[in-house]
């Protein structure tokens, strides 16, 4: 298919662009295969807007006489309006945008066409390999091994080719366990707590069914993570009732009789369309400037968004607490083990592991716990808050995770190497990107699409020094402690950087942030200068002494 076929009117002049808190600009609109480009074409103050078609969530058109207006709502929550003279042009442009923003084939997406303008310093596709992770692990413990049982994605289609499992369990046993777990997602190591040797594992639900099926290998695998005499906790992200209902569909949970050393905790985390609805409601509330206080607060409440944040943080803290304070190993799962499970395991690591609070460590966490762990990004992030498709598989699971990280970041502003912008950038790229990183639903699909060969990795770009500098937190000072956030409602806040980003003037806040950075930078300069001067003085003194 040629993109040209979809572009009936490639260019329109005298288009007026409206954005909140900006002056309207007149200019030229161009459509290309992947971008909507608006340029003011003025020499004195040229303004350009490049918008990826894949970033467009929904589009509305209306007419007043022959003047058409297109309202474009983006996945990054921005809303822009274009006034296009000429009914036909406007209709053409609107239908082209609609077609181009809803291409159904992944291989037609921009990452397959994007050619980077920068010099490649490292290939992000191979920056974070599980093998490296394992090397680090094996320097502190020899109880684990790297298994290639899933090399052909045959044991578990949503797992990566290599996984870390207890040393005592062989590949044959893993195959059997995979048959006993939903989607073949047998328990694998998610995190090893060096401090006390406790492990966090993740999996999907066991397929016990109504007649209480068991699997000896599964029990052995799960128990293999326990030191003798220690106990463990299974954190099930479903309420007990849901877990029980799941048995009727062949799913289930670990029966206490069969896993006597394990205690189950049901910590409910909301999923799928409930989250998506919540997201839609919240964005709706934030976008309406006319709400009076009561209406705003009740809309904020009705969205339930902050409740999800609190529940999720609580669950993650609980997992972290079991590991760090109770000295117990933990197994986390829900039903499929691809959403709430990953939220809990990755957040728990942010709390427990200082490495995950560095830029590279956080990137590695996302690769390990989200991309390789098979979070179906392409399904979940197909549409954002302006979607009206109401597909069951669309859900802001990853955004919720990012927001929880932001909430912790706010409470520990000096403990993270990255800043808020880094989290916002990840949110944007998970929904629309020139990079291939978030395409596909799991490693198997990515391999089939040959993404590493055909597209550029987000990490190749982000980790270049000039980009990194934008995402560094000047307040960062490595903090080796476990960081326990407060989950009281008074301590949680709406993530304004995402939800109010386009709805309020931000100049003063940005300037203040700059000033903060300047104070820190200036401090470093001054300290360096003082040191130089002290050294000089000391030298002078030393030179004098012999004379005396």
């Amino acid at each position, binding site marked *: 298919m040629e993109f040209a076929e979809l572009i009936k009117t490639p260019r329109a002049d005298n288009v007026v662009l409206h954005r909140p808190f900006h002056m309207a600009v007149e200019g030229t609109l161009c459509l290309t295969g992947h971008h909507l480009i608006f340029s003011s074409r003025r020499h004195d103050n040229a303004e350009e807007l490049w918008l990826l078609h894949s970033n467009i969530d929904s589009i509305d058109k209306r007419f007043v006489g022959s003047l058409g207006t297109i309202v474009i709502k983006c996945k990054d929550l921005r809303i822009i309006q274009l006034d296009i003279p000429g009914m036909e042009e406007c209709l053409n442009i609107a239908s082209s945008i609609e077609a181009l923003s809803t291409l159904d084939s992944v291989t037609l997406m921009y990452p397959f066409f994007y050619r980077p303008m920068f010099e490649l310093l490292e290939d992000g596709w191979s920056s974070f390999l599980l093998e490296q992770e394992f090397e680090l692990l094996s320097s502190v413990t020899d109880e684990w091994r790297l298994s290639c049982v899933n090399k052909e994605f045959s044991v578990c289609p949503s797992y990566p080719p290599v996984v870390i499992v207890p040393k005592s369990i062989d590949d044959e046993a893993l195959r059997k366990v995979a048959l006993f777990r939903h989607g073949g997602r047998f328990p694998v190591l998610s995190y090893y707590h060096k401090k006390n040797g406790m492990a966090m594992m993740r999996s999907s639900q066991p397929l016990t069914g109504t007649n209480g099926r068991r699997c000896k290998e599964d029990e052995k695998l799960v128990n293999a993570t326990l030191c003798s005499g220690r106990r463990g906790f299974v954190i099930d992200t479903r309420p007990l009732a849901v877990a029980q209902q799941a048995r009727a569909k062949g799913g289930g949970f670990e029966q206490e009789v069969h896993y006597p050393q394990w205690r189950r905790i049901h910590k409910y985390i909301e999923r799928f369309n409930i989250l998506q609805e919540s997201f839609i409601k919240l964005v709706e509330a934030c976008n309406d400037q006319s709400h009076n206080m009561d209406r705003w607060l009740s809309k904020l409440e009705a969205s339930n968004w902050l409740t999800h*944040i609190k529940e999720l943080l609580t669950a993650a803290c609980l997992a972290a607490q079991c590991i760090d304070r109770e000295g117990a190993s933990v197994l986390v799962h829900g039903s499929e083990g691809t959403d709430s499970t990953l939220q809990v395991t990755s957040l728990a690591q942010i709390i427990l592991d200082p490495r995950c609070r560095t830029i590279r460590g956080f990137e590695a966490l996302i690769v390990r716990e989200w991309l390789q762990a098979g979070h179906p990004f392409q399904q979940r992030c197909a549409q954002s808050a302006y979607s009206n498709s109401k597909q069951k598989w669309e859900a802001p699971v990853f955004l919720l995770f990012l927001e929880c990280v932001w909430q912790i970041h706010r409470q520990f502003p000096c403990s993270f190497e990255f800043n808020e912008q880094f989290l916002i950038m990840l949110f944007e790229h998970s929904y629309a990107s020139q990079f291939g990183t978030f395409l596909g639903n799991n490693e198997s699909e990515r391999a089939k699409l040959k993404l590493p060969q055909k597209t550029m990795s987000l990490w190749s770009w982000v980790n270049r020094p000039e980009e990194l500098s934008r995402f560094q937190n000047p307040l960062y000072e490595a903090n080796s402690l476990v960081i*326990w956030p407060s989950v009281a409602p*008074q301590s949680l806040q709406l993530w304004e950087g995402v939800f109010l980003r386009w709805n309020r003037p931000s100049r003063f*806040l940005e300037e203040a942030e700059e000033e903060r950075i300047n104070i820190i930078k200036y401090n470093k300069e001054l300290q360096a200068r003082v040191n130089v001067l002290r050294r000089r003085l000391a030298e002078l003194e030393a030179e004098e002494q012999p004379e005396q």
Partner: protein
Amino acid sequence: QVEQVKLLDRFSTSNKSLTGTLYLTATHLLFIDSSQRETWILHHHIAAVEKLPLTTSGCPLVIQCKNFRIVHFVVPRERDCHDIYNSLLQLSRTAKYEELYAFSYNPKQNESEQVKGWQLIDLAEEYKRMGVPNDYWQLSDANRDYKICETYPRELYVPRTASKPIIVGSSKFRSKGRFPVLSYYHKNKEAAICRCSQPLSGFSARCLEDEHMLQAISKANPSNRYMYVMDTRPKLNAMANRAAGKGYENEDNYSNIRFQFVGIENIHVMRSSLQKLLEVSGTRGLSINDFLSGLESSGWLRHIKAVLDAAVFLAKAIAVESASVLVHCSDGWDRTSQVCSLGALLLDSYYRTIKGFMVLIEKDWISFGHKFSDRCCQLDGDPKEISPVFTQFLESVWNLTEQFPQAFEYNEAFLLQIHEHVHSCQFGNFLGNCQKEREELKLKERTYSLWPFLLAEQKKYQNPLYNPDFSPELTLLEPNTVSFNFKFWRNMYHQFDRSMHPRQSMFNLIMTTSEQNKQLEEDIKELEAKIKQRNRQSDVVLEKEQEQTAHPAPVALKSSPCFQKEQPPMPVNDTVRTIEGSNTADNRYSELVSEFSKAEPAVVSLEYGVARMTC
């Protein structure tokens, strides 16, 4: 003195407590825990003491403070608890001004320092700064002996064309004699903020002098003949007042006025709103939805928004239309003070400085007779007179500092400290209800002024991000008052609940860093001077050497035998970046698991924990 008293954590359900000794002094309640940490509570800060039913561990005593601290003691013996309870009730309720802390507080200042302290804020100077008296406005001696209005200050500025009979006539037509006077004069726009109380218009009464008074105000503005009259009350309340012979201006009787209601609720609504807010925020194990719906039903943020909206309206009338504005409510000392002072704060960057903010409070709140004594319940009095009007003013300012982080010289700590002292009765400034009363109490001789003390420790109150050039003088600050901008002021209402605050304070870090930068700048100067001196000395001896040292870079690179002598860089961050709450017990989620840990050996009770969790 009572020993073995337990201090419970307000929000933890795990009954974590500190054990220590409780002392009662003449002015304070003091609790010293086993690790020698002290908690001081001023008796005047105590808003309520409550004895709860006896429990197995003792007799619980809950003390609520006006600065929103809530402490929960458990006293082992009931008799002790009863004694403490009775003493606190007596100590926290004062019948006479003379018994307040301010009269016994002695900060070791001599008399001249005391006098100087009181002279620090000079309102005559302030009016001069605004540009009055001038061709249109003059100082009136009408109230010199408090004959016309007891709750106004002696010095009042009125339009030149308002003669004494007009003033007297107008004052008789205004509630409590509070006739229209100047509150703020905007030099550039030649427009004024005036304030008064409601007219005694009833359903049809008129007063020619009052009409002349308003006309005089509008004529005193050469750039716009029209003036606004802002009634800060909800229309319904104002109309109800007519039945009592009070009311609001009839537009037909006054020429060139535009009348406007802005709908801020009265002191009683505000009092119960705050009470609801505190009930909600004080709930243990609060869910997000209960918090948000409680926040909504308390109406607190709605009221804050209403106050700020009114101030924005006022400031815009002046800055955009150059129109003078007359503001009143019922008596003109609560809502009027809020709106006038916030309006001036938006208009004039001087009030966004530390000194300027003190001036603003002295002018619009203290001198114009905001009834601090009644509103803050300094003396045992009518509980219906208590209202958080001034707290709302501080909260509105805080909201502005959040939107304009660089526009204010002062920081949040300054606002909190002022709030603390409005209730502490430690200084004389806020005692009494009006200037006349303060003079009668001879506060300037018998007590000390708060402002010099705040100024002396102003380092603590400086906003490190402050940019004096943020906005040119007399340009309007235009806050965005869309609802989502208003947030719950955690640092006010949970100031003492440490577990709720960020574990690392970005604010403190920036404060200390900025402080340290100043110190480093000093160090550099000193070092450079020393080096210069040495260079001069060595000049004589070692000419060549001197040439080298003139270029810092190569010298610094050269490895030197004195390297070990080099002092380490200042110990920057150890103190700043302490992390609080690395104890999980501070957080609520911990309680889920504490169920497990309690049952360490027994697996059975673990089961119990699971059961509780899953139900």
